[in-house]
């Protein structure tokens, strides 16, 4: 059989041929894939998803609803990428595949998602306004009207917290631009304050970027690269003067580190993007002076975008504050939050949420450190479902309590 022309839509981003052919189908990724573990289906495995991409690439299949389901069932946790001896860059491949899948999705769902990713997220004021609306809805207990599956993924916005300010700058020393971020700034404001304190304690002048200004990760993960590039440019412009750039959500730090790749074809921005990417640190990589915060035993959840995408973890930071860290013993399997996954694939997400919550509860620790907003919402919901009293907290809050 000869090689036919590719069936990718040329007007959209697509997985690169040179990436797709790298997979030798050895299957070593299978046990690391949470959705394969749950279903036993090749169609829900990294190897299967890549084979589907290759089938489209080689003209043996088209992008249809079956292709889209396979790509959407993926958590994009990238556990497969860390396990792959061939170095297949699965993270960027799944982004391309999802961009291709976009036209097969129902028009209404596309419209809503598109409005959120390209209409709201790039506009910090709208993000903050959405936060206030969510806060009001929660205050009125309107969240009870949402289906149970969505309730579990609703961010813990509080009007009291929204009214409390976050310092714009703090500390002395070289300049550190601290990403405000979208969800973090709206729903995790105590973490934002703690982050400023930790950055200052690490010897920097901590300075926040535009409140509720998104890094663009969600838009990129969900097939809207143009919106993602626009957000990247806005963040680069306000962060490039800094010695270091700090993000306190794993998805954000992982994404900012790819800014160079994202804007490589934009001559005006490529070098600036590379520079910001190179200066980026996740908060958990900072080294504030050790001090005993009396933490006791802390269960550690590894966010996928730390463990698999960046190969980092918060244990050093926590141990420096006197914590006795315990692992969850589940090999770092994804909790099922995965960006919008818990909203889009509620059934699979619920099973992963339960597994993760059980693993956290089994450690016996009173608190679990979680350095990503999606994971924090998901794990807190899972623990509530179990009736567990384990507290979920960002490492920054743990090492620098108010």
């Amino acid at each position, binding site marked *: *059989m000869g*090689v036919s022309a590719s069936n990718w839509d040329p007007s959209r981003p697509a997985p690169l041929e040179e990436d797709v*052919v*790298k*997979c*030798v*189908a*050895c*299957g*070593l*990724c*299978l*046990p690391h894939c949470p959705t394969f573990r749950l*279903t*036993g*289906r*090749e*169609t829900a495995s990294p*190897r*299967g998803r890549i*084979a*589907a991409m290759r*089938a489209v690439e080689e003209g*043996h*299949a088209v992008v*249809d609803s*079956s*292709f889209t389901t*396979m790509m959407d069932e993926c958590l994009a946790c990238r556990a497969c990428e860390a396990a*792959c*001896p*061939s*170095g*297949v860059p699965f993270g960027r491949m799944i982004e391309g595949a999802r961009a291709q899948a976009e036209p097969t999705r129902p028009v209404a769902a596309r419209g809503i998602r598109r409005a959120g990713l390209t209409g709201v997220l790039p506009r910090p004021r709208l993000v903050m306004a959405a936060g206030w609306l969510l806060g009001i809805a929660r205050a009125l207990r309107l969240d009870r009207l949402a289906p149970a599956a969505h309730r579990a993924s609703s961010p813990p916005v509080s009007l009291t917290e929204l009214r409390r300010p976050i310092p714009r700058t703090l500390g002395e020393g070289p300049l550190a631009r601290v990403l405000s971020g979208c969800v973090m700034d709206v729903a995790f404001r105590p973490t934002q304050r703690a982050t400023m304190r930790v950055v200052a304690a690490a010897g920097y002048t901590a300075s926040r970027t535009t409140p509720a200004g998104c890094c663009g990760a969600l838009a990129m993960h969900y097939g809207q690269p143009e919106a993602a590039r626009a957000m990247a440019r806005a963040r680069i412009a306000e962060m490039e003067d800094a010695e270091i750039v700090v993000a306190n959500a794993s998805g954000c730090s992982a994404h900012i580190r790819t800014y160079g790749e994202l804007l490589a074809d934009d001559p005006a921005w490529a070098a600036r993007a590379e520079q910001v990417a190179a200066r980026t640190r996740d908060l958990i990589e900072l080294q504030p002076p050790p001090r005993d915060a009396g933490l006791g035993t802390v269960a550690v959840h590894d966010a996928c975008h730390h463990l698999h995408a960046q190969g980092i973890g918060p244990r050093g930071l926590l141990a420096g504050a006197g914590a006795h860290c315990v692992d969850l013993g589940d090999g770092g399997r994804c909790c099922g939050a995965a960006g919008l996954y818990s909203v889009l694939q509620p059934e699979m997400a619920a099973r992963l949420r339960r597994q993760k919550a059980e693993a956290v509860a089994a450690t016996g620790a009173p608190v679990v450190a979680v350095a990503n907003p999606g994971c924090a919402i998901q794990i807190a919901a899972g623990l509530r479902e179990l009736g567990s009293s384990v507290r979920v907290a960002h490492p920054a809050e743990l090492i620098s309590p108010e």
Partner: protein
Amino acid sequence: MATTQAPAVRDRFAALLDPGRVIDHPLERRLYGRDGSIAQGDCGLVVLPETTAEVVACMRLAHDLGIPVVPRGSGTGLCGGAVPLDGALVLSVARMSRILEVDPSVPCARVEPGVLNLDLSTAVRHLGLHYAPDPSSQQACSIGGNVATNAGGPHCLASGVTAQHILGMEIVLADGEVLRLGGTAPDPPGYDLRGFVVGGEGTLGVVTEITVRLSRNPPHVTTMLLDFPTVAAAGAAVGGIIGAGVIPAAMEMMDQKMVVAVEAFVRADLPVEAAALLLVEVDGTAAEVASHTAVVERVGAETGAGRVRVARDEAERALFWKARKSAFGAVARIAPNYYLHDCVVPRTRLVEILARIYEIGAELDLVIMNVFHAGDGNLHPLIAFDRRDPEQVERVHAAGTLIIEACVAVGGVLSGEHGIGLEKRDFMPLTFSATDLEAQACAREAFDPEGRMNPAKVLPIGSRCGEIVLDAGSLPEGTWL
């Protein structure tokens, strides 16, 4: 083009399972047309049963409908054994992944076929036990697939291959009949058919439950890396160690190109400038380990080893093994496809056959790397290539044939552990006479008179006795025979 089972057929299977466990979309079926080899087959329908009863129901229906069936574990096999042809039904046991019982007193475990090899060892680690056969794909491959291929692995040098670790099996035959073979008793009554079913490559039935022997974890282990200036020197060391009366738990060799590819993935500070690397593991009591380590070091020094690097701790030992066990996958860093051979030669002929393999690579202008079980002469020459280049594929094909012929010529056999499947099927006459093949075909027919189990695999077309002629199986894309 892909063959589809009629919607009515799909609906009948869906009535036995639930619709979510029957796959018939063309793209989704296509994913079940492959295993770890490069052949793309043609899968007509996929079923994912969860119990023996469901397997029986599916097999009876397939029997009634006259549909060929290909059992599938994790699909990590390398010889096309799980590749369906002509729209066959793929029966995946991936959802039959429960460990049913562990009996530490035997010690043994009763497991479903979809249990992953490493998951079993992990589950019994707290009892001081493990499952000994450890193929390189052990994190991903299933016990059912291990039984089908009679899988080996680095530690099979001292502990024996899969067949030596299977105590009992439950197997569902092509017509749905359930057969129980063996058990925990040392010697089952009647003919011991276990040795025939292990390595049956899915041509005899679907194994639905397996009782495996578990092994005690050795009290002490030492793992060493020895680097050599030439492949011949490493080969001499292998002979020297065994000649000195030491059978290491494992003894693996990797040549320079392979080491370079693997180092890029594991970053274990491997000696990338050495011509060959030997990974030797010895285990047992402290005294045994000490004396065997001394022998390995002495032989290494005598045969020109540069340095003997002993794993400092469990983490470093795990890193050495990760390097060895991710070798095949790491090849994609050199070329997008690989063709991995699996043949066995008498250990004394290792050096000579390796030289011949490099010669074949040079003659045909191909990158051939070697990573293999040196201790038992089980070679894995690996040819890196790009299947998008048809002319290159031709040369890879030619090299494969020359390598197999060279191995058989020095008294070797076709397969050490991967199986025959599609890949080696037509090489079978190199080692078996027509009478041998016919005898094997008759034995197979006793289990599956209609020839519906994994048809066109293992035995060359025309081996069967009587009048039944298998569909030759139009060869799938990417295969050569």
